[in-house]
């Protein structure tokens, strides 16, 4: 590991992408993600890479599609309203089996919403970032250091499964500063991409990148093939962190910024003698169903905490599968819940138990 430096979440995401070999960034500025693009604008020319501020989010995601087709590591970043604009392109990327990285530094919605942090794009990221039958990888870092670590994994898995990957952050994580260690990368071993349309001087059959199929049976088959890969990803790549869950009666489930607030609340609850724990999904797709189902055997109650009106809580309920009650607490619109508010909810659940 290298020496410690002080980075904003947005800068860390950008630097990590550069370290992962990404040299092609296409974006359009939007608060609270702007430092990411600004960092790329400063760094990319020095590395012989591309930083391109497109005329719109729609243009930017289609440039990503073009670069991904050529087989290079490429990315875009935005905040909530901008990600909505990209959704058509994301669907085309998924339909063309193209790997790329999309970063969403979430802010309050719907509509123009606000510029303060939010987690209200969970459904969009994990269920429907565009039309059609498809999924993308979704990673939810909770610290600036984890942002650095997950960007590389996101690129690797995107390449391995030939599908888009998303880092779902929020305005708080994007804007806050923390000391980080940037890993020293000696040599990148990138996966070979024999499918890429990258020029070959007639040395092979030419490749085609496409998401249009004339026969419904052909389209169905490509989707079935893709879903077989999704099943493989679900079996191998459910990532989570458990904190004090082993003997916990009440398990708080939270990701990203709200998991840090929940962690403080869990620690305070323990001081009061309440057996609370924290389950933190790190991959939101695939959602860590298996471990959560196991926890439903030992825990008595679950509490999902989100900066939304309750979106991930649906997946928690599906994973727990009716074995134990699942409650929800959230603040939304850019309001950040406090540890005291979460502790209040934990106490309420514990009180009903006694």
């Amino acid at each position, binding site marked *: 590991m290298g020496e410690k430096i002080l980075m904003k979440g947005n800068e860390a995401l950008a630097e990590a992408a550069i370290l992962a070999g990404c040299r092609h960034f296409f974006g359009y500025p939007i608060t609270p993600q702007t430092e990411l693009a600004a960092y790329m604008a400063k760094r990319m020319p020095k590395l012989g890479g591309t930083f391109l501020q497109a005329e719109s989010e729609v243009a930017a995601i289609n440039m990503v599609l073009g670069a991904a087709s050529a087989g290079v590591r490429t990315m875009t970043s935005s905040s909530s309203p901008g990600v909505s604009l990209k959704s058509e392109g994301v669907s085309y990327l998924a339909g063309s089996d193209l790997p790329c990285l999309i970063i969403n530094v979430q802010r309050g919605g719907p509509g123009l919403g606000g510029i303060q942090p939010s987690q209200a794009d969970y459904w969009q990221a994990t269920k429907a970032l565009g039309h059609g039958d498809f999924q993308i990888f979704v990673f939810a870092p909770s610290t600036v250091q984890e942002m650095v670590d997950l960007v590389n994994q996101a690129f690797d898995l995107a390449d391995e499964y030939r599908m888009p990957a998303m880092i779902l952050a929020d305005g708080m994580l994007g804007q806050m500063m923390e*000391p980080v260690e940037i890993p020293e990368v000696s040599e990148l071993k990138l996966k070979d991409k024999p499918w890429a349309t990258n020029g070959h001087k007639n040395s092979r059959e030419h490749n085609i990148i496409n998401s249009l199929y004339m026969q419904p049976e052909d389209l169905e088959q490509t989707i079935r093939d893709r879903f077989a890969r999704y099943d493989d990803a679900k079996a191998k790549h459910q990532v989570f962190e458990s904190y004090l869950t082993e003997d916990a009666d009440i398990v708080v489930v939270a990701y990203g910024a709200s998991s840090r607030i929940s962690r403080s609340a869990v620690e305070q609850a323990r001081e009061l003698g309440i057996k609370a724990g924290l389950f933190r999904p790190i991959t939101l797709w695939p959602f860590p169903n298996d471990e959560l189902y196991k926890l439903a055997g030992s825990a008595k109650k679950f509490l999902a905490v989100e900066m939304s009106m309750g979106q991930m809580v649906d997946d928690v309920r599906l994973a727990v599968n009716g074995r134990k009650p699942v409650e929800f607490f959230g603040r939304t619109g850019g309001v950040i819940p406090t540890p005291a508010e979460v502790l209040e909810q934990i106490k309420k659940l514990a009180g009903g138990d006694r």
Partner: protein
Amino acid sequence: MLNHKYTMICGHYGSGKTNLAMNLALKAAQNGESVTLMDLDIVNPYFRSSDYKELLDSKGIKLIAPAFAHSNLDLPSLTAEMYSIFASQHERIILDVGGDDQGATALGRFSKQLDETGYEMLYVINKYRPLSKLSAEATELLTEIEQASRLKATGVVNNSHLMGETTAQTILNSIDYAQNTADEAGLPLLATVAERRLIPELEGKLTKLLPVDILVTNPITS
């Protein structure tokens, strides 16, 4: 430092300008001076001195903030009230400028008046910020800030730190960087900032120590 009515605090994003500005304002107020703190950061809607209005109010410090600061409206603009600093009877006017040259552009609007009144402009540096970790990068950024603001820095303040992980050694390791940056910029190194808890360890090893309290905190870790 604070040897002039007008003090501007500029530097890289996240170098610690707001925390320094608030500490200087609180110290001046403690010394019985009348103080105005102007939040001139119109490029970043997060972590800014207007977020600390209550604390500043309680110490009798007047805060002048951009319109819509700490709201959901991303419409940065300068207010008429900002021009009142040039008619102010206050003894200290501290300007917390936005990061980099982008943030310093707004300061350029006041360059003519500040040239007439005279000023002190502090350039805040942090060795542990990745895009300004070399003295050459820090001086290049200063040139960009000076061009954008149409004003000249008068001194360098070494604010090298790693937030809560800062040790005395963290600061000692930044001294050469700070001195080189100041030398390359042709400016005096006015102070090295250290959180109050580290002062006993640093005393005797460093001159021009400036003790500060950590006032700018993060809602999810504090």
